[in-house]
């Protein structure tokens, strides 16, 4: 059972435009959400996170939105740059989970066209 879903395996965006990556989850116990960026043959790097007590968190060009009622979060990148081309994973953790585990989605490959 995939508790965190990224239904778009790929996304192509023109440089300078907005990239919107989406993520849905099913477990209502998730209370903390993260986005990671991954280049080929490298480990994922942390981008931005949001707690369930918020609905928006912003860090430079990156903004994460959380809609708890819809169990949906999204990552907005504005403006998109060619260096943003990578695979983006959303992840979630559950309240008081043993070992502070993260559940990851399957990833969305973003291609930013010059």
């Amino acid at each position, binding site marked *: 059972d995939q508790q965190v879903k*990224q239904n778009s395996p790929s996304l192509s965006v023109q440089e300078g435009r907005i990239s919107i990556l989406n993520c849905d989850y099913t477990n209502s116990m998730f209370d*903390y959400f*993260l986005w*990671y960026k991954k280049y080929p*043959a*490298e*480990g*994922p*790097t*942390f981008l931005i*996170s949001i707690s369930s007590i918020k609905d928006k968190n912003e860090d430079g060009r990156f903004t994460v939105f959380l809609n708890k009622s819809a169990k949906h979060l999204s990552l907005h990148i504005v403006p998109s740059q060619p260096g943003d081309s990578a695979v983006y*994973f959303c*992840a979630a*953790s559950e309240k008081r989970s*043993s*070992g*502070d*585990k*993260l*559940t*990851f*989605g*399957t*990833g969305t490959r973003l291609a930013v066209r010059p």
Partner: protein
Amino acid sequence: SQTIHQWPATLVQPVGSPLSLECTVEGTSNPNLYWYRQAAGRGLQLLFYSVGIGQISSEVPQNLSASRPQDRQFILSSKKLLLSDSGFYLCAWTLRSLGNIQYFGAGTRLSVL
């Protein structure tokens, strides 16, 4: 500052051979440690995690095992590799004070032939 080291970067092993991947973290104490696998075209699957020396939790039944002989050392092993063990293996760490943000190593690309 904290750093995580994972080696080797690439490994090609025959079916039936043993496996040992090592991960060490520097600059912190008592981290939670994790092993993930990313199979081709798939997401990150949590294999094992550890909240302390000698404490290992397995997330999925498989041909692999993990050990934590020291506070900042996490080892992934197999006695006999299968073709299906091929993939990209990632080690990660976190501290409770970091709010569940996990930091990943560079990964090991394992090809079982």
